[in-house]
């Protein structure tokens, strides 16, 4: 077993191994407690939090050679639990099957942190495993009387000097006095911070213990199955909506008539029809509760029909969003890149320039299962919440803030639920506040699940964007300067709507611009990006209006659509092949390699767009292809769309999509393939179909016939190209697979029709208008 040796001095300074007598508990384990690896429905016993400096809080080696690892990060459906298992197995030299994970329960995990960036989440468990491995080697050296350097470990069995001992036996009666060095603190509410809580990362394990070299990975880099899938397939998984507690009530919310309404009077319950149902209310938060879920569901619309709300009409309507953003007086932007005036001056000197204005609508996460949560607020002040959050400690901080209590009184238990796609990453949004408030009001545990209509109207949204971009060319047709301005409403508002409507304290964040672009074209030195932010539309209402929130590849997805669309327009304007044009503007070999590999897999024929046979009218379909790239979090993606456009009807069909990814070292090729393909589906859905519609009062796209997402029939053949590198660390894998859809499809549309599509989604209605002009 080869171990990298960098910083081993640091490692030994913090790993202090002392040999003690048999531990009293007689369990022959590292730690004095063991948790079942399934969610518990017991209300939490409020006690001291796990000490993150104690190994025992993180990791437990049992006498049967199995290992329990604990992390506050959670599985959101992309396979994180598998990747964490793999990295712990790698560092400890055990089989992944030997490891079980406890994730996301704030009382049973030491670190907290948000689950968005895999690299950060994995770093903690990886380092803990690496520290532990060093300690185990020292312990084995003592027990076997063999120097550490002569020891090898395979599948949890240490060998050396002709002797062997498995971990489970090695730790019998031993106590590893291993201190885990950490920095940071658990999340707590702080309205002055950018998302209203401190410490998105929770505790971070510090130091640099020796870790296995990427080039010598044995478990990482292989397609191990993702844990949890068999239980999801056989029906054993317990979901948030399956949690039941003694005396629990089910609730259905009665939401305001408009985004800005306040309550006038609550409707009544017909006790003959709904004998067990009751109304619970606080401020503008209204719900129907019943021990029977179906009775709560049936009574809620009846109560809603009799409930009176004030009128409000302060939204611009979705068709006027761009106009509204255009008219906005913007505060100073966030900036990146070079001095804007210098870039303007450089563009002004160019003999050839192009400019374009791009528009993207409000879209939303829209999972199949609406938000759900169960809460048990006890008279002793303890609060337990069962839910699916990507940031349990952040959620704990927000619930504590809402209740005016301290985080130590609140326990979040993490349970599976429908995908979150970013909306719970900052520990807010969801049904948790509703459940907590209703449990407090009724004195009983309460299970809340939103309806689909409610979720599509009241959950947070990914805000609309408009972008102005200009580019200047040199005499050789190369772009030498790019000036980008991005405008959008607030994108970082994780306030729970239940707390807002109930008028309870709510931490918030300040609307500000957010430059997310990672500049991929290093040959274009003269460039400047400005991002302008403003409050939510309808911000001055009790509900907070259209609460903008992050969604998969946040900000960068929208900004990249504009930037890559402009690059495609630039290539077309000088008659260049759009892939060659990109290659001509970068020296980044990783980008060059993934572009070339993806082009090859797609059978890309070098030529400029539009196609010689491009046309904007006629009944026969016309075909085209388009490309785009995105660089993010140490990963490179390239996407090539092939489309068929029917000019007469405006129908756009994506017939094939090729996507390439180079995320440094690939951790699990099979799961990466799965998540790349599904990410493409999400991106094509945004490119072709998705738009949150609203009138002047409320969201109107409130079911699947009005908020349309891609179907299986609309899913094209998807080809995935993977490049793995041993010398570039690892990146965020499949995340931005959704972001390559819209620019590539828009480029393919131009190739087919000769008309630039500067807005998504490419619905038949929009395309028909576009082709007529």
């Amino acid at each position: 077993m080869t171990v990298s040796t960098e910083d081993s001095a640091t490692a030994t300074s913090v790993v202090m191994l002392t040999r003690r007598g048999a531990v009293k508990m007689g369990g022959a384990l590292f730690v004095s407690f063991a948790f079942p690896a399934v969610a518990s429905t017991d209300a939490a016993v409020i006690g001291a939090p796990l000490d993150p400096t104690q190994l025992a809080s993180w990791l437990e080696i049992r006498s049967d050679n199995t290992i329990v690892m604990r992390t506050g990060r959670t599985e959101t459906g992309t396979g994180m639990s598998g990747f964490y298992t793999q990295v712990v197995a790698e560092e400890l030299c055990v089989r992944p099957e030997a490891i079980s994970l406890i994730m996301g329960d704030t009382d049973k995990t030491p670190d907290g942190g948000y689950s968005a960036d895999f690299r950060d989440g994995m770093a903690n468990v990886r380092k803990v495993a690496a520290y532990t491995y060093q300690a185990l080697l020292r312990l084995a050296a003592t027990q076997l009387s063999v120097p550490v350097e002569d020891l090898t470990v395979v599948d949890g069995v240490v060998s050396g000097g002709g002797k062997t001992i498995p971990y489970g036996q090695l730790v019998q009666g031993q106590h590893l006095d291993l201190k885990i060095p950490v920095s940071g603190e658990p999340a707590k509410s702080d309205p002055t911070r950018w998302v209203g809580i401190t410490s998105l990362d929770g505790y971070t394990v510090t130091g640099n213990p020796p870790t296995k070299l990427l080039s010598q990975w044995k478990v990482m880099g292989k397609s191990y199955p993702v844990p949890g899938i068999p239980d999801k397939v056989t029906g054993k998984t317990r979901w948030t909506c399956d949690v039941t507690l003694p005396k629990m009530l089910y609730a259905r919310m009665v939401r305001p008539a408009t985004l800005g309404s306040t309550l006038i009077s609550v409707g009544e319950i017909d006790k003959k029809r709904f004998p067990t149902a009751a109304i619970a209310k606080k401020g503008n938060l209204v719900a129907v509760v019943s021990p029977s879920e179906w009775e709560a569901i049936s009574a809620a619309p009846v109560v809603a029909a009799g409930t009176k709300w004030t009128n409000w009409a302060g939204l611009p309507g979705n068709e006027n969003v761009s106009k509204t953003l255009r008219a906005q007086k913007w505060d100073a932007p966030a900036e990146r890149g070079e001095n804007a005036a210098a870039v303007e001056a450089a563009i002004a000197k160019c003999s050839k320039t192009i400019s374009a204005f791009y528009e993207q609508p409000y879209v939303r996460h829209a999972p199949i299962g609406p938000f759900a949560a169960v809460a048990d607020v006890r008279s002793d002040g303890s609060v337990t919440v069962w839910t699916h959050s990507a940031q349990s400690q952040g959620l704990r901080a927000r619930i504590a803030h809402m209740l005016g209590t301290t985080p130590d009184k609140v326990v979040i238990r993490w349970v599976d639920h429908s995908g979150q796609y970013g909306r719970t990453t900052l520990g807010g949004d969801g049904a948790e506040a509703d459940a907590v408030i209703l449990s407090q009001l009724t004195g009983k545990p309460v299970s809340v699940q939103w309806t689909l209509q409610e979720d599509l109207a009241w959950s947070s949204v990914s805000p609309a964007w408009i972008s102005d971009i200009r580019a200047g060319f040199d005499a050789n047709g190369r772009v030498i300067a790019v000036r980008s301005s991005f405008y959008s409403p607030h994108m970082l508002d994780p306030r729970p709507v239940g707390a807002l409507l109930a008028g309870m304290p709510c931490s918030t964040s300040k609307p500000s611009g957010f430059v997310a672009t990672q500049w991929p074209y290093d040959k274009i030195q003269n460039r400047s990006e400005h991002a302008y932010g403003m409050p939510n539309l309808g911000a001055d209402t009790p509900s907070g209006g259209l609460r903008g929130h992050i969604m998969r590849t946040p900000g960068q997805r929208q900004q990249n659509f504009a930037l890559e669309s402009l690059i495609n327009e630039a290539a077309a304007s000088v008659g260049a092949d759009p892939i060659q044009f990109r290659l001509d503007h970068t020296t980044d070999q990783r980008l060059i390699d993934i572009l070339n590999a993806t082009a090859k897999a797609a059978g890309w024929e070098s030529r400029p767009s539009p196609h010689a046979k491009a046309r904007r009218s006629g009944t026969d379909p016309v075909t085209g292809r388009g490309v785009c790239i995105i660089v993010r979090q140490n990963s490179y993606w390239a996407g090539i769309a092939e489309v068929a456009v029917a000019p007469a009807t405006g129908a756009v069909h994506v017939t094939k999509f090729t996507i390439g990814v180079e995320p440094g070292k690939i951790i699990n090729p099979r799961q990466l393939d799965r998540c790349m393909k599904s990410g493409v589906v999400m991106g094509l859905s945004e490119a072709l179909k998705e738009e949150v519609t609203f009138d002047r009062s409320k969201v109107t796209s409130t079911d699947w016939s009005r908020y349309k997402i891609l179907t299986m029939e609309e899913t094209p053949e998807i080809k995935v190209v993977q490049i793995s590198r041993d010398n570039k660390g690892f990146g965020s894998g499949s995340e931005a697979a959704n972001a390559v859809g819209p620019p590539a499809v828009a480029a393919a549309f131009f190739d087919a029709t000769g008309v630039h599509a500067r807005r998504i989604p490419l619905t038949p209605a929009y395309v028909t208008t576009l082709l007529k002009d």
Partner: protein
Amino acid sequence: MPSEFSLSVNGAKQIVSAAPETPLLFVLRHQLKLTGPRLGCGMAQCGACAVLLDGEEVRTCVTPVSSAVGRQLTTIEGLPALWAAQKHLSASDAAKTLHPVQQAWIDEQVPQCGYCQSGMMIAAVQLLAKNPNPTVAQIKDAFTNTPPSPHLCRCGTYVAIIDAVQRAAKAMRA
């Protein structure tokens, strides 16, 4: 007013008590503790609550409990037994054998969040009963155009589902 209904669920007789118009979904989940079917849209637009009723997919969020009387109801929890009965497996073999559709869903690593996947597997079982060797186009058609609505997956696992249906088809033909 609640009435008693005698249902045949996953091969076993079950007596449940509910108002006749109560959607099957809530009877299955709360009284029979069968949580495979899940509430998605509540209006037959997504497929997350699907079960088989006499081999035909129904959306339990809009199907009254009374309409299940006298028919064979199968949830994903009952798929292994359904397969075991079809293949006349011994009790010991049956205990360790999943339905080929479930096995394919595991082997092809289909679920991401997994919320919609019970319904997807139900749709697959129905399709393969009618068409043992479907083409990709036929699979897409079945999952999209079979009334009352397309089966929707927001994680975007459609390609994995197509792969899994074809794998299951092969296993079931063997």
